């Protein structure tokens, strides 16, 4: 067994994560020490609920000045109970506690926007709302990259989609 770094005899085998890939590395003592390997390993990933509760505590601590909604306007779930159990009571809880939930969900997922499947029963404009969002991101990029022709094109398409939606009634952009 030889060291993957320097070719000398390797003494340590370990699993490394590089660019989102796990692979087995073989290293000599020196190269391992240079990378600070062999000391501590991340503990087993705990149950999600613990993680969630940890976040809740943090969020709660940060926001201690701002008082959260005491309870959900629809189902009456007290915010304190959500903090204790980590479970919401109804769909409207997502709106009632939005201020508290948004940072929490971002911490878990790195995002707060659903980009997956859409129910067939969802209103038709869900797809167009999503399209507008995508175009706005593209627009920002185009402006930053000084591609003004493309930016103008994108802006027109966004206006187009938005005017079509407002004909339909509500603003819908949640």
């Amino acid at each position: 067994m030889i060291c993957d770094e320097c070719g000398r005899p390797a003494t340590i085998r370990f699993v490394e994560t590089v660019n989102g890939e796990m692979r087995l590395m073989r290293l000599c003592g020196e190269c391992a020490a240079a990378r600070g390997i062999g000391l501590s390993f991340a503990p087993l990933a705990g149950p999600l609920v613990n993680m969630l509760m940890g976040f809740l505590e943090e969020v709660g601590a940060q926001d201690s000045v701002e008082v959260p909604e005491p309870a959900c306007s629809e189902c009456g779930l007290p915010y304190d109970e959500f903090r204790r159990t980590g479970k919401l009571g109804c769909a409207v809880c997502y709106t009632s506690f939005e201020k508290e939930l948004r940072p929490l969900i971002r911490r878990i997922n790195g995002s707060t926007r659903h980009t997956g499947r859409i129910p067939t029963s969802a209103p038709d404009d869900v797809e167009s709302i999503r399209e507008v969002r995508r175009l706005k991101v593209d627009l920002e990029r185009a402006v930053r990259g000084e591609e003004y022709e493309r930016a103008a094109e994108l802006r027109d398409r966004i206006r187009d989609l938005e005017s079509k939606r407002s004909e339909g009634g509500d603003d819908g952009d949640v």
Partner: protein
Amino acid sequence: MGTFEQMLATQPGWLDASGPISNVVLSTRVRLARNLKGVPFPMRADNADLERVRDRTLAAASASNYLSDALVLIMDESSQSKREILVERHLTGREFLRDSPGRAVVIGDRELVSAVINEEDHLRLACLRSGLEPMDAWRLVDRLDTELERNLHYSYSSDWGYLTSCPTNVGTGMRVSVLMHLVGLVRSNRIAQVLGSISKLGLSVRGFYGERSAALGGFFQVSNQMTLGQSEDDIAYMVERVAGQLVTLELEARSELTEKGGRKIEDEVHRAHGILTSARIISPDEMMVLCSSLRFGITEGLIDSVDLATANGLLVSTQPGHLKHFNGRDPGPERRDRMRADLIRRELASGSSA
């Protein structure tokens, strides 16, 4: 429609070792969490709501292709021992051991598709596959979901996606779990590093039957942590990719073990087989260790008198709830250890279909 006893007499399809990479991956499960529009989540719903949710969902299930012939179990009418069996077969969570109105389970052919009603969410759909098949399992559960949607209106926001009782499921409501046998990584003491890396890649790990099954037998369940911000295809693909890397690492560790271990490994594997086919008392912990060695021996070609499906089946059929049910009542732990040994001997005597 089959009966509960018929279900018990048939091995779950996800244990039959017919899928890809069955030497390391026992099965893949994809589960979708859904709630019905306009009804509080089960925890805040009243009895009338819960029963309405159950009846509407059961009606939708019986109108679908995938679940029209399924076994329907109403929890209010199901004994404690039946419920334990559902938990041990990973059809419901432990929460279903408790009494609560409106709960039901719909179980499709060979337990490969199922719908759990009024657990944490109104509806949890699951599709299972033998071996490493996240994409396949996702596509199937998606088709079932689409069928049910014709009759059910789900709680959904264009911003957050599918709304779930626990915010850790919101978005896709999708959890992809791969059940892996990582005996090589456990034996070569590499498992802690590997599991540390996995959590950095956005996956979480649990033991298949709690932490002991992982520590003793190397049976791990690897799942995605994030449910929002990525499409379902991306999530399924991500889990498949990371699980694939785990497989590579596990196979490397196994071949090192057999190379280095030589006769010693061969001896150990045959000892495990010998105990399983001869012993009269086997505890759950011993069972996990021996079954893990047996599986390892089969996949490394050291044992050919037992097939992989039989070894997989022992993991489930020797669980305490199963033994209690076969006995008619709880025989207590000591008697259960004897029953476990008897059952293993019987299974191994008949389980050499290969």
